């Protein structure tokens, strides 16, 4: 079954066409890494998928339920009702490059506030689950800390827990290690590997090519708003077919 289905997605900012007719499916348990040069539209793709941007044309669905559907007569995407979109948001979590934790909430509240106040889940159960997650990511003793008291790597782990608390069908990561010092990168990659071993469906934008090769089931190379090449990690990363992929990977090695 496909968790995420994107069909013919296009997106422009003014006259700048950023995503051009992107189609993409992610099946349950699959781990997809997205690589590509800066400005190629990777973040915009994730932001469209997580409803932070509205797409111009094309369709988007989670587990067969439509977030938006292309309307041929209007030639644009028509979004579902606000209520429906609110329900569909539970289907995914998003981990930002800059964590975006809420500075005035403790670690525990950062993770539990939305499930309790937005999704109206049972408070005790949510807190219980949050504590389990914190234990999993090695931050059990930090539940009452505020984000400023944590290292970048710890903050990012909290934001991963926040993205997981509603048991989403899928988690998106937008360059989760890019804001971190190199020595903190590994702890995040380790956490993501752990999720991968649990077969949590993930789509990860990353510049960590080795990590992508090890952890992903499929690698997508984007450039200029299109998917240039995709396939098994070893094929795309070790034996790229497209000249743009070859140039990009060659430049990374320098």
């Amino acid at each position: 079954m496909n968790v995420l289905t994107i069909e013919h997605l296009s997106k422009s900012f003014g006259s700048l066409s950023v995503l051009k007719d992107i189609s993409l499916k992610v099946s349950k348990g699959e781990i997809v890494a997205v690589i590509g040069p800066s400005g190629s539209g990777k973040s915009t793709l994730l932001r469209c998928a997580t409803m932070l941007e509205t797409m111009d044309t094309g369709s988007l669905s989670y587990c067969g339920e439509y977030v938006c559907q292309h309307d041929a007569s209007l030639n644009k995407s028509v979004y579902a009702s606000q209520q429906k979109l609110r329900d569909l948001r539970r289907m995914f979590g998003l981990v930002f490059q800059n964590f975006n934790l809420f500075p005035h909430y403790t670690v525990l509240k950062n993770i539990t506030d939305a499930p309790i106040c937005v999704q109206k889940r049972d408070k005790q159960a949510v807190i219980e689950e949050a504590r389990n997650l914190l234990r999993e990511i090695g931050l059990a003793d930090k539940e009452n800390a505020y984000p400023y008291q944590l290292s970048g790597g710890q903050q990012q782990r909290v934001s991963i827990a926040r993205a997981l608390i509603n048991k989403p069908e899928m988690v998106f990561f937008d360059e989760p290690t890019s804001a971190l010092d190199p020595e903190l990168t590994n702890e995040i990659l380790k956490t993501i590997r752990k999720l991968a071993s649990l077969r949590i469906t993930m789509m990860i934008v990353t510049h960590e090519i080795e990590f992508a090769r090890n952890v992903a089931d499929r690698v997508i190379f984007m450039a200029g708003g299109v998917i240039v090449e995709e396939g098994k990690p070893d094929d795309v990363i070790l034996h790229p077919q497209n000249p743009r992929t070859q140039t990009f990977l060659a430049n990374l090695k320098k």
Partner: protein
Amino acid sequence: MLLDLLSGLVTSIAIFLLTLVFALPLGLVISLGRMSKRGFLNIPTKIFISIMRGTPLMLQIMVVYFGPYYIFKIPLSSNYRFIAVIIAFSINYAAYFAEIYRAGIESIPIGQYEAAHVLGYTKCQTFFKIIMPQVIKRIIPPVTNEVITLVKDTSLSSTISVLEMFTIARQLSSAQTSMMPLIAAGIFYYVFNFIVAYLMEQLEKALNYYR
């Protein structure tokens, strides 16, 4: 003399508190209008703020007080004096607070809104649970400045002879041909502001649990 001054001080405190009660929320409404993308909201609020900040408060008090009579020939009742002062102070300070709120709200990183959005918070929840608490922390220093100025500005009510502390001090001083009432009033203003500054400092400390 002290009793007279103290009764004036009570009026000054009333002006001070009522102005804050009205101006703090009104300022928020105005700042939201000012930041709106709709022209019919942001253009009038922008002009309003510009006029309120660009003309003397003393003149605004007189316009609010005498306006109804000169323009509409509504007879002025004596208790309208106090109401006029409250109206003039409230809209004037609301304009200043609006700009402080706006700076505070615009200083919150866009990522906070985005994180809230992805987690499913409604616009209203995002504003009141996520954004406003952080804004309040950031704007306490400029708000403290305004509040301290307000304590001193209450003396402008004497323009239309509201019997607050400064009006009374001036009357006593000329009746007794003595500096003492003015000096005593000065001390009261200073103590008043000392307490206000102390309270704002406590508030700032109370919000220091995060950064």
